[in-house]
C-alpha cells in the first residue's frame, strides 16, 4: 500500500471512530494548509497551529524535510475535533509527513494527491527558503499562496529580490508585512503631511523596518532613507524625526497573524512593490 493510501485509510478509520461517539460529525474544510517545517522549526510551527485551533477547518499537512536520512516517507495522521454549538463536532485532519532523503526534494509527489480538490492550498514556509531548491519550486507550483515570515531570514533586505522572483508564480504573503499593518495605518493617517518624508527611523526587526521603508518608497514614488535601531518588535517609528503615534491594543499573536493570512486569497501588489522597493 502506498503512503497516500495508507494515510487515507488511517484518516477514514479515525473518522469512523470519532463518529462512533454518537455526536454528529461535520467534515468541513476551507483549504489545505501545508506547513514546510525543517526539524528546527517543527516545535514553533506546532505551537502556532495549536493557537490557530479551529479557526480554519482544513486538512493540515506538516512537511518535515530530512534530506540527510534514508529516502522514504513516514506519515502520521490524526483527527482533531472541535465542538460546535448545537451538539455537533467539526473534524479537522492533521497529517505529518517526514520526507526523508531524496523525498525531501520532491514534496509535490506526496502533497498533490492529498490536496482537497477545488479548495485553495496555502503553504506556510518556516525559515528562509533555499531559493533554487526543487522543493520550493514544487511547493510554489502546488500552492495558491506561499506564506513566509521574512523576519525569520538572514540577508534581508537583499533576500526580497529572490522572493520577488516568486511573485509571478504564486501569491506571496509575509507575516512580517502583516505585523507592520498597524504602523502602516498610523503612517497613512499622516497623509498628506507625510508626502515629502525623507527619512524613516524605525526601532524594530530588520525585516519589518525594510518593508516599512519599501512601502513608503513604492507608494510615494520617491526615495526615503532608513535609519534602524535593533529591537525584537517595532517599538518606535519616526518620520523625519517626528515620532509616530504607536498603535493601540495588544500585538497579535503568531497564530493571529497566520490566521489573517489564511483569509487572503489574492496577490498583494502593495506588498510586492514594497518588497521590491525595500531592496533598493
Amino acid at each position: 500500500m502506498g503512503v497516500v493510501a495508507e494515510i487515507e485509510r488511517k484518516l477514514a478509520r479515525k473518522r469512523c471512530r470519532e463518529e462512533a461517539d454518537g455526536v454528529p460529525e461535520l467534515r468541513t474544510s476551507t483549504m489545505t494548509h501545508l506547513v514546510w517545517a525543517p526539524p528546527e522549526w517543527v516545535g514553533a510551527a506546532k505551537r502556532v497551529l495549536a493557537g490557530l485551533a479551529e479557526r480554519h477547518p482544513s486538512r493540515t499537512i506538516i512537511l518535515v524535510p530530512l534530506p540527510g536520512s534514508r529516502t522514504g516517507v513516514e506519515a502520521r495522521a490524526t483527527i482533531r475535533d472541535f465542538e460546535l454549538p448545537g451538539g455537533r463536532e467539526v473534524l479537522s485532519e492533521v497529517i505529518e509527513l517526514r520526507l526523508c532523503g531524496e523525498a525531501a526534494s520532491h514534496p509535490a509527489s506526496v502533497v498533490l494527491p492529498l490536496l482537497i480538490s477545488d479548495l485553495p492550498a496555502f503553504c506556510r514556509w518556516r525559515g528562509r527558503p533555499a531559493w533554487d531548491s526543487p522543493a520550493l519550486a514544487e511547493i510554489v507550483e502546488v500552492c495558491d499562496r506561499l506564506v513566509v515570515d521574512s523576519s525569520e531570514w538572514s540577508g534581508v533586505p537583499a533576500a526580497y529580490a529572490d522572493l520577488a522572483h516568486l511573485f509571478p508564480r504564486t501569491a506571496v504573503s509575509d507575516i512580517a508585512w502583516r505585523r507592520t499593518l498597524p504602523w502602516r495605518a498610523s503612517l497613512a493617517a499622516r497623509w498628506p503631511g507625510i508626502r515629502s518624508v525623507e527619512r524613516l527611523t524605525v526601532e524594530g526587526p530588520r525585516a519589518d523596518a525594510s518593508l516599512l521603508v519599501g512601502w513608503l518608497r513604492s507608494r510615494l514614488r520617491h526615495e526615503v532613507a532608513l535609519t534602524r535601531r535593533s529591537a525584537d518588535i517595532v517599538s518606535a517609528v519616526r518620520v523625519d524625526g517626528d515620532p509616530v503615534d504607536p498603535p493601540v491594543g495588544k500585538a497579535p499573536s503568531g497564530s493571529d497573524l497566520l490566521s489573517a493570512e489564511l483569509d487572503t486569497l489574492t496577490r498583494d501588489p502593495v506588498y510586492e512593490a514594497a518588497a521590491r522597493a525595500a531592496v533598493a
Partner: protein
Amino acid sequence: MANPLAEGLGLRRKPDPCALVVFGASGDLTKRKLFPALYALAYRGLLPDRFAVVGVARTEQPTRQFLTGMRAAVKQYARDPFRSDVFESLAEGVRYVATEFDDDSGEDRVGEALEDCDRTRGTAGNRLHYLAVPPQAFPTVVREIGERREREGWARVIVEKPFGHDLASARELSAMVQRWFREDEVFRIDHYLGKETVQNLMALRFANGIFEPIWNRQMVDHVQITVAESMGIEGRAGYYDRAGAIRDIFQNHLLQLLALTAMEPPIDFTADAVRNEKVKVLRAMHTPGPKSVVRGQYGRGWVEGEEVPAYREEPGVDPSSMTETYVAAKLYVDNWRWADTPFYVRAGKRLARRETTIAIQFKRAPHPPFEAIAGEGLRPNVLLIHVQPDEGVSLAIGAKVPGAGMQIRTVHMDFLYGGAFRESVPEAYERLILDAMLGDATLFTREDEVEEQWKLVDAVVGAWGRDRPTFPNYPAGSWGPSRSDELVHRDGRSWRRH
C-alpha cells in the same frame, strides 16, 4: 489627491462622528440588543472616533444608574467577553435623559445633552435617532425630533417594526415622517435582514452560477418558508394581542424572506437596486383567497418538557381573544420566473421548536429508474437554508445504500456556518446600526416595500372579518393547526418533516 498609503490597508470606512439618540432606552430592546451591539462595535473599533449615546426614556434614573444597567446587560447578552476598557470608553460618551416623550422641557434637556455631545465629544451635529418605543409613541417622538432638527450635520431615524398597523396607518406614518425626513434618512428596521444567513441567501443565489438555471418554475416544485418560535408572547400581551402573527412576523420577516428568495438578480448591491427587485416581487404577489390562508391560536400544551398555558391564559390577554398566534398561507408570485409555483409560508408561536428555514423543493427526476425499489427513502431534492438556529445550508440528495441491490436513501450535504467560518457571527443589530451610521439603507425596508406588504396583509385580514374560527385550534408544542396541513395536502404536498 487620494491617499496612496491607504491602499491595501483593508481599513473599513468609519462612520462620521455622530450621536446615537435612543428613545426607549430603558426598555428590553436596548438592554438585550442595542447596547450589546454597540459594545460589539466598540470592541472591534468600528464606532466613529467621536461618538456619543443619549438614552431617552420615562424611567427616572441618573446616567450612572443607567450605565450600571447597561454594564450588566453587556455582560449578559454581548457575544464578546467583557472588557472594562472597552465598556468605559463607550460609557464616557453616554448621557441619559428621563422624560415623557411629549414633554417639551424634557425634549429641551435632550437637546442640551446633544449640544453637550457636540461640544465635548465632537459629534458635529450628526444625529442617529433610534425609536425603540411602542408604535403608538412613534408620531410624538418623530414630531419632537423633526421639529428640533438642526441645520448643522445629518439626521437619520431608525424605526422599529411594525411600521404602522395597516396600509392606511403606514401611509399616515410615512407622510408624517416625511414632513421632516427624506426617504434616504429613514431606516425601517427588519432585523432579519441584518442576519448573516439572510445576506448569505443573496450570496448563495448570486455568487454561485449553478443555482440560477434551476431557480425557477421549471425546476422548483414549491418553496416552504417557516418562521417558528417555541416561546409564547413573553409578557408582550399589550402589543401582541393587537398585532397577532400576521402583523408581528408575516407582514415583515416572512414577506422579506420570500422577496429575497424570489427576487431577480439586482444589478449591484446598492440600497435601491436590491430594494427595487424586492418590491417587484411583492407587487407580483397574488392576494391569497380565504382557502389559501389558515390561522390558529395555541391552547395549552407541552413545550420542551414544560407544560405551558394557552394563549388566552397568558397574563394580559383577553380570555376570549381572537388574535391569531399562527398563520400559514399559500402564496403565488405571478411573474415569468415563478408563475404557478406555490410558496407555502407559516409563522407561529409555541410551535414544536424554534426554527427559521427556507426550503426550496425541486421537482422529482423525470424518470427515476429506482423508484420501485427506493420505497419511502427517496424524496425530492431540497435545498434548505437555515436562517436560525444552526445557520447554514443543506442539500438533500438521493444516494445509494452500500451493499447489494439498488436501494436509494436521502442524505444531507451540510454547510454549517459555524463549521466553515469560526468567526462568531455578528448580531443583526450590529450590522444594522453600523449601516445606518454609514447611511447605507440596503438592509432596511423602503416605504414602497412596507406598503406592498401591508396591502397583502390588509386583504388577508379583511377576509378574516367574515368568519370566526374556533380557537384555540392547536396545542402548544405542536406544528400548528391541522388545517395548515390540509392547506398543503390539498396540493399533494406536505410540510417538511422535522
